[in-house]
């Protein structure tokens, strides 16, 4: 059984993920096929009608937006405390994926809100805090792109990620702390699920499909980041191998020009 430290080694990570990725992608494809079939054969909701089918996309996207940010925050701790290169790679790879799922959460929510609430958007605590989450994701992406020195960018992004984590409990508990139009927790509660099993099953299958997809995308994006670092390092090393030009040769060339 490999130890956690050996798994965190980039070479071992590349070898392990090369084997794990096809399985994860296959599991995601299979779960999506089953989930979509269940989503479109499930009965319509007595109040929401057909729009309940939007929930099979909206709820998993919302869960992922929080899950990915939490994963980014754990990676940020790894990057700041242990300066582990894989933690930096994980943090950087997760940001665009989290951003896309948060965007999807907001868009699918708006598409559900218009027929159900009569408005695309309301400045409700849950919606507003998720919008803030999207802005935080965009800010972190901007940090990665704005700072050229990647080690410095990693430290700044890690700090920003940890500061932004304050928003995660606000998103989660906003429906309890404030009077919101958005409904409270209904899938997992202390009294059990408040959702009918016919609707709960496709929702959970779709949530598993989204989670498998995210895991596959995160690993693939992390592999890309490792390759990018490898390319940068190899380019620097091969450039340093090139013999330096003598100052006399440069002067002669200058004179000829």
């Amino acid at each position, binding site marked *: 059984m490999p130890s956690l430290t050996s798994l965190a*080694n*980039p*070479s071992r990570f*590349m070898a392990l993920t090369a084997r794990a990725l096809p399985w994860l992608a296959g599991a995601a494809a299979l779960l999506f096929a089953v989930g979509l079939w269940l989503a479109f054969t499930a009965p319509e909701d007595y109040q929401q*009608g*057909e*729009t309940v*089918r*939007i929930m099979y*996309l*909206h709820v998993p*996207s919302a869960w992922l937006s929080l899950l990915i940010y939490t994963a980014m925050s754990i990676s940020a701790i790894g990057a700041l405390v242990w300066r582990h290169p894989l933690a930096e790679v994980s943090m950087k790879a997760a940001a*665009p*994926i989290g951003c*896309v799922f948060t*965007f*999807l959460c907001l*868009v*699918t929510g708006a*598409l*559900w809100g*218009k*027929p159900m609430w009569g408005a695309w958007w309301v400045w409700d605590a849950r919606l507003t805090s998720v919008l803030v989450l999207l802005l935080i994701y965009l800010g972190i992406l901007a940090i990665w792109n704005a700072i050229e020195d990647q080690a410095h960018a990693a430290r700044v992004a890690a700090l920003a990620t940890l500061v932004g984590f304050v928003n995660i409990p606000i998103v989660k508990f906003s429906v309890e702390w404030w009077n919101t139009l958005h409904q409270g927790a209904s899938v997992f509660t202390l009294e059990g699920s408040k959702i009918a099993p016919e609707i709960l099953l496709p929702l959970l299958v779709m949530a598993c499909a989204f989670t498998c*997809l995210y895991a596959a*995308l995160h690993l*693939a*994006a992390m*592999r*890309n980041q*490792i*390759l*990018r*670092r*490898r*390319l940068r*390092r*190899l*380019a620097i*090393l*091969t450039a340093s191998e090139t013999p330096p030009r003598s100052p006399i040769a440069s002067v002669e060339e200058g004179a000829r020009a």
Partner: protein
Amino acid sequence: MSFLALPHIGFVIAAYAITFVAVTLLIVGIVLDHRALRRALAPHESEARGHPDLDGAIP
């Protein structure tokens, strides 16, 4: 009643279409990035093989 005549079905179709497009773009972006990196790495890696300093650069 046909599927397209169901109430609010346009919102449902739009939600699934936008999700499909966004997820597909994400997957295609990552796959294309991977291919471009592999192509860019190929000449460096053939040089690096057997070279003690450059071999160390391959994680």
